[in-house]
């Protein structure tokens, strides 16, 4: 397997809830709407989703509640059997795995964090975190040592002996995160991990999460219904509606070029300049020429605002990492993003 091939790859994944949905799906042709399917007595939770997730990428799935996010992520780990299509994890079709292979995959490759934590109430923090290791049959001593390591990592040292009900929500979710990390998974699923937390704690947990990701660099599928959260974390965002992925792209592309009306409405409230970086707007050097001091391409337009307004040049050179000029920014484009284009 080459380094560039995707870690997870979905092709035409369908999930319908209802009796005999497999045979019903075979009768479908074209692109039936959510309502048509519902009229036939099925709930279309995931409809014809195809996307790839690359090694080390953080894909954020967004959508209103009921749009099928949880169902989709459960299809990726086969917590739910899909109705149609296929899901490959590291090249293997997980739909065809035996129960044993599946358990092995989960024991060694996957970790998941749940919205309401999913902790075992009768086990201490330490025992909860050691649980996946125990399931693998590791010896007690090794389990304990590894669990303590992860506890340290998520900042819960000193609370090993607490029971879940003795912890605050944020702390409980730290346990959930620690447990999902205990087996050192390559793929990490997080289903609205911070939605049940207070806004202040949510922010703190996001920072914590970014810190962990910087250390660990895992392939991540992160679910949220909070756009700010998505923008803070995502490499790419997939926006779902009624089981369909409406658009899957980088945050900047989503706010600049919404693929559908729904996505446009979804992103209407967003201040684009905070999302779009200079390098996204930059044109290739060949199209125009610019002089003077280059600007840092990874800065958002918003953070360059003062400079853009005061500068008199029409075209600005944009530097990539290392200071090499990689493109030219039309100042008017940037100001349009900053102030909103006249329509």
């Amino acid at each position, binding site marked *: 397997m080459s380094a560039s091939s995707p870690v997870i790859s979905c092709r035409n994944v369908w999930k319908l809830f209802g009796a005999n949905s497999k045979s019903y799906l075979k009768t479908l042709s074209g692109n039936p709407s959510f309502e048509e399917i519902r009229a036939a007595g099925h709930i279309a939770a995931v409809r014809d989703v195809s996307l790839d997730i690359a090694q080390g990428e953080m894909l954020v799935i967004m959508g209103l509640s009921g749009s099928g996010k949880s169902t989709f992520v459960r299809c990726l780990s086969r917590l739910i059997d899909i109705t149609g299509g296929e899901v490959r994890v590291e090249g293997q079709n997980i739909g065809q795995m035996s129960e044993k292979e599946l358990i092995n995959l*989960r024991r060694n490759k996957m970790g998941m964090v749940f919205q309401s934590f999913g902790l*075992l109430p009768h086990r201490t923090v330490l025992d909860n975190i050691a649980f996946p290791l125990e399931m693998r049959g590791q010896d007690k001593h090794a389990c304990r040592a590894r669990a303590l390591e992860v506890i340290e990592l998520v900042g819960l040292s000193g609370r090993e002996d607490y029971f879940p*009900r003795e912890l605050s929500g944020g702390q409980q979710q730290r346990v959930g995160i620690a447990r999902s990390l205990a087996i050192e998974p390559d793929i990490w699923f997080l289903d609205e991990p911070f939605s049940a937390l207070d806004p202040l704690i949510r922010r703190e947990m996001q920072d914590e999460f970014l810190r962990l990701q910087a250390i660990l660099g895992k392939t991540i599928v992160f679910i949220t219904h909070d756009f700010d959260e998505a923008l803070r974390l995502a490499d790419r965002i997939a926006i779902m509606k009624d089981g369909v992925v409406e658009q899957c792209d980088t945050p900047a592309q989503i706010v600049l070029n919404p693929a559908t009306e729904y996505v446009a409405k979804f992103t209407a409230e967003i201040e684009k300049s905070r999302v779009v970086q200079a390098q996204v707007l930059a044109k290739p050097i060949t199209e125009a020429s610019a002089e003077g001091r280059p600007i840092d391409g990874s800065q958002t337009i918003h953070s360059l605002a003062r400079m853009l307004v005061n500068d008199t040049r029409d075209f600005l050179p944009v530097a990539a990492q290392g200071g090499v000029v990689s493109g030219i920014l039309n100042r008017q484009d940037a100001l349009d993003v900053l102030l909103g284009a006249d329509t």
Partner: protein
Amino acid sequence: MSEQTLQLPKHQPVWNHQRTAWSILIFAISIALFKGVLPAGFVRLPDGLVIPFADGINAAFAFLRDDLGLIHVTRAFADMVEWLLNVTGNLLYGKNRWPRIGPIPWTVIASIGFVVGYALQGWRLSLLTGGTFVWIAVMGQWKWAMETLSVIVVAAPFSILFGLVMGVLAWKSRRVEAVMNPVLNIAQSLPHFAYMIPVVVFIGVGPKAGAIVTIIFSVPPMIRMSLLGLRKVPEEVIESGHMCGATRWQLLRHVRIPTARTEILVGVNQVIMQCLAMVVLASFIGMPGLGQKLLQLLQSLKIGRSAEIGITIVLLAVVLDRCTKAWATKQPAHFEKGTPYVVRNKFLLIGVVSAVLFLALAQVFPILDQIGRRQAFTISKPIDAIADWIIVLIDPITQWLRWFLITWVLIPIRDGVLWLPYISVLALLAALGWAIGGLRSAAICLAFFGLIALSGWWDRAMITVYTVMVSVVIAACIGFPLGIWGSFTPRRSSAALLICDTLQTFPSFIYLIPVVMLFGVNDVAVVGAVVLFAAVPLVRYTIEGLRQVPETLIEAADMSGATQMQTLWHVRLPMALPTIMVGVNQSTMFSLFMVIIAAFIGTQDLGQEMQRALSSTDVGKGLVLGLAVAFMGLMVDHLTTTWAHRKKQALGLI
């Protein structure tokens, strides 16, 4: 104002079944009116039509027992149970069997009781638990109580294990559940005696039979609670187990069952309470212990002594109930880091130390080992004196009450019920069923009572019906006002609920003591016992129903200027009715059980026949009678739940 205030109950039950129901009712009445001119077949089922269910059951049992050799299986199981009973018997009351080290001195058991109570909930439970054992020892009832406990100690774990396994099976397979559900429904409405007869056939009489009937009787609630608990485990917890790579077995063992802990322990609580109720009654099949003593003393009208035993049984019931409930609700808590071993395990250590201490002391002071009959206290004399005094004092009232009840209530109603042609009764029930739940309910009522008619026990069954009816009506006359009174302030209602809950833990047998004391051994005493027993759930659910009425509704009524009485009549009671109906349902169930138990103080209903079947070990007859009682209960259950469901729908509660 909130949404809720818009849903003030309106009297709008539009049963479109009413016309049919009325016509059936008119049919029933006309059959009764023209009884004289109708052929005899309309009045009582012709003998030719009676189906000999009992013979069939007997043949089936004989086949099971002899041809299939089930008796060897049951014998083997019974032998194992007996061996265990011998062990606990030796330890608890010094039965002369292996391991021959008992009996354990009473002070050791009492001190462990103190420690267990404290560990589970604190000082109060500690005093209650330890104090109960002290009371038992001091009153000279140690041996009987230990005979009773030695059976519970063996029976409860078996029931818990069977119940858990069957609960898991029912949870795993919808098909098993579909079969198990109706069986459990019937099993839980069969009177105690119906269980005893087959056991006597297969095992005989004595402690071993008592233990086995106890095991069988107490399994159903455990199955239900395990199933409920397993169903309630949150989806995300199970998914997290899957994602941790748990196999099916690991998931069950480490995720599902521990997470269902509370429900499972509530099941354990119910098992133990059922065990106690049954083990007391098992005295009818030769089970020694408190129940047997109580039975003997009651039959010879020794009120003081039976009251002493009654107190012991009540104390044991409360202790077992409180301890297991405390265990069920106890949540795990952590120890601070670096807490030494001694502190972490302090209760275990204190328990061991005090046990060893008292074991040693008992060697020196025999009084700490066992208290003989001579050294024991008794309060039977003062109780007898007080009882006599009370009896003399209220004798005019009881005499009058007895006369009034017998001549003006019991006999007329009984004669009336017996006078009715069976077709009339069936039609009446069908009309009632139709009015409540349409064709389906009418058919269910007809099927249940039709089977009773076909069994040939119509007259006996009617006597049971009349006793239960009279008792529930009297219980309602007492229970509703009490419940309404109890619901007025939160303090009062929580106190009343506590009392009711405690009363409900008492084995049914206990309720016979005060009524026998007041009324002697006759019909009125039976009705009295049933009324007492049946009033408790009525009070309980009336209070619960009234307290559950949403505050906003009551505030809305207050704002509309309703007086307290108006609020009660027009808002609280209608809203509480569905819950009160649950009380009526339970009350009827309890009455049926109690009527059958009370048979030994003299009734002429199904209970008396059941006693006869028990003494002649006639399985077929016993089961037919038991099923007849169960059908009555199931019919009432169906009618009340259907009614309550419709009412709730009409009120917008569901």
